[in-house]
């Protein structure tokens, strides 16, 4: 039922890439934008082909547009008006809803993603640096040829050592809790992850967890098989993070425990609910076990994973209503050099630049930002936000339930800062061809 030959691979197939490059583009005129798009379409992978040939390919290309970008390509105003309000307004206008205030405010973003001139993103995943550099040069030449297409900014990404598993600059194992999609062969949910979700939660035009497909933005050829994507460039303050662990833990073991309490998992990925006292790296690496837990029955008071820990907020599992209407697909990676253990912070920007894919930004991405990450009163916590990615201004706290008396950390520093972001629409292949041909016969 899923049209795998039309849906871009991005949210559906994770390629074997170790490096990536994002380029943020602006179109000076509609014809230039369409010429660029027409030239790049053949490089864009569809889900079916990428899933079949992921082992043999060496690069994977994805293209998506902002609302201003769809307009810049020449999409008519009547069609533009049928897109959801939050997408039309864009991430910058939604800053307060998302918690992008203070240091995280779009006025401080550094990559011109806050500019209304941002029209498109081209995402390149590549197997290695040589292939990325080859693609980068090829694209550079192509952009020059098009004329009227400007690269506003770009970001190079690479996995950081140790390379045998995905993790961020803080050292936390990543890609642990991913929703499975119903009808997608081989996409079986891991134990504890619930049933596979209806494709309409992520791709427009399909039934979702609430029932039949919703009305699509117009025209249907543009929206069907597409998704909305929220981009976030998040700087990770590794020096501050390590200082914090040292400040709150005297021994390496205590420091690891503090790191685990912030996340709800040990840095190995082992969930605190299943390994409350001591890290268990084998458990962390075992997909058949590392998601097989709940909170309501197994850790209702947060003695293992604190109520305000990152994973409890991002996926409250059995302790939130309508969880299946809030799931998202994450893609992305780390940028900047790894900071060696023991080295002082070098002031170089490093972090994670990731994408959240969903069918409804307001219901899925914005809900998570607004209600789970930045609601100070999540789970009645009173004065907390997500300790890793919440908006922290030094006035909030983090409580670690413990018998007989809980530990309360006040004045939690900010470990991350938003440095860029935008809302994109990720069209299907048919839609990309339709957009490229705008102004001709349709």
């Amino acid at each position, binding site marked *: 039922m899923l049209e795998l030959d039309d849906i871009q691979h991005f949210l559906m197939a994770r390629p074997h890439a170790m490096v990536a490059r994002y380029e943020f583009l602006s179109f000076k005129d509609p014809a230039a934008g369409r010429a660029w798009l027409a030239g790049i379409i053949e490089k864009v992978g569809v889900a079916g082909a990428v899933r079949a040939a992921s082992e043999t390919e060496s690069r994977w290309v994805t293209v998506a547009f902002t609302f201003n970008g769809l307009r810049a390509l020449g999409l008519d105003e009547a069609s533009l008006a049928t897109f959801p309000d939050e997408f039309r307004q864009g991430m910058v206008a939604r800053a307060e809803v998302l918690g992008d205030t203070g240091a995280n405010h779009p006025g401080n973003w550094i990559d011109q993603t806050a500019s209304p001139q941002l029209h498109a993103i081209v995402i390149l995943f590549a197997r290695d640096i040589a292939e990325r550099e080859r693609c980068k040069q090829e694209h550079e030449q192509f952009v020059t040829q098009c004329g009227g297409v400007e690269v506003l900014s770009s970001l190079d990404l690479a996995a950081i050592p140790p390379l045998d598993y995905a993790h961020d600059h803080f050292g936390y194992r990543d890609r642990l809790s991913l929703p499975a999609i119903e009808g997608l062969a081989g996409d079986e949910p891991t134990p504890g992850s619930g049933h596979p979700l209806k494709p309409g939660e992520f791709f427009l035009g399909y039934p979702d967890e609430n029932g039949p497909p919703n009305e699509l933005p117009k025209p249907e050829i543009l929206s069907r098989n597409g998704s909305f994507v929220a981009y976030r460039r998040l700087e990770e303050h590794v020096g501050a993070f390590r200082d914090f662990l040292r400040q709150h833990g005297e021994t390496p073991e205590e420091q690891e425990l503090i790191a685990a309490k912030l996340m709800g998992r040990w840095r190995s990925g082992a969930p605190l609910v299943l390994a409350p006292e001591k890290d268990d790296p084998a458990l962390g690496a075992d997909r058949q076990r590392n998601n097989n837990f709940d909170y309501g029955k197994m850790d209702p008071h947060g003695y293992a994973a604190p109520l305000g820990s990152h994973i409890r907020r991002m996926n409250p599992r059995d302790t939130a209503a309508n969880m299946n209407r809030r799931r998202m697909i994450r893609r992305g990676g780390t940028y900047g050099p790894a900071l060696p253990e023991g080295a002082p912070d070098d002031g170089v920007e490093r972090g994670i630049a990731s994408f959240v894919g969903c069918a409804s930004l307001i219901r899925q991405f914005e*809900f998570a930002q607004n209600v789970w990450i930045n609601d100070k009163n999540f789970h009645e916590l009173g004065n907390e936000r997500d300790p890793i990615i919440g908006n922290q201004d030094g006035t909030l706290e983090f409580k670690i339930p413990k018998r007989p008396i809980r530990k309360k950390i006040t004045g939690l520093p900010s470990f991350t800062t938003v440095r860029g972001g935008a809302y994109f629409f990720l069209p299907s292949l048919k839609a990309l061809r339709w957009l490229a041909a705008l102004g001709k016969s349709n």
Partner: protein
Amino acid sequence: MPDKSTQDDWTKPAAVAIPKGGFFPDKVEQGRYGPIFPKTPACYGFSIIAKIIPGREENFYEYGRNLAEGVTGTPDLLASLKLHYLRWNLFEIKGDTYFQYMGIFDTDFDKYTEDAVAIFAATGRTTVFENLEGFPKDWKTNAGAFIKFMRDHQCPSFMEYGEYPYVSADEIKKALKLKAAFSNMLDQMQ
């Protein structure tokens, strides 16, 4: 509007006068669906007032019985809404019947509003709102339209009072549980 330090003092009853329109102009917080009506000593809340479709009164009484049965059968039916109280009234103005729906709860309406729509949809019943004039027919699939109707018919307070201000329903339940636990402890000591 009282600052946070006074909000923590539940022993001191508090009242707050709210400017016309329902917002404190210098402190309007943006929610996903628009500006959020402020938290007061009486927590968050709404008062929805709308005209009913003539001749539909009986549907409201039937719905009341239905919902009561629903909560009896599934006591946590409305748990995700973080409610203290709901009050539903019908009243007449110049021969027309109006419906008033007042809720007091601990989270702003925007935060869990889709969950509210989902509960109405999931209980398998039609919602009583379908008997109100102007209610969107596609409410089950169009959360945005449902929310817009609620916002359009919200009648903001100009004064709210709390005898134990800002205390959440969960905190009250915890206090009662603690009291029960102490009683039990004292019994065990006899």
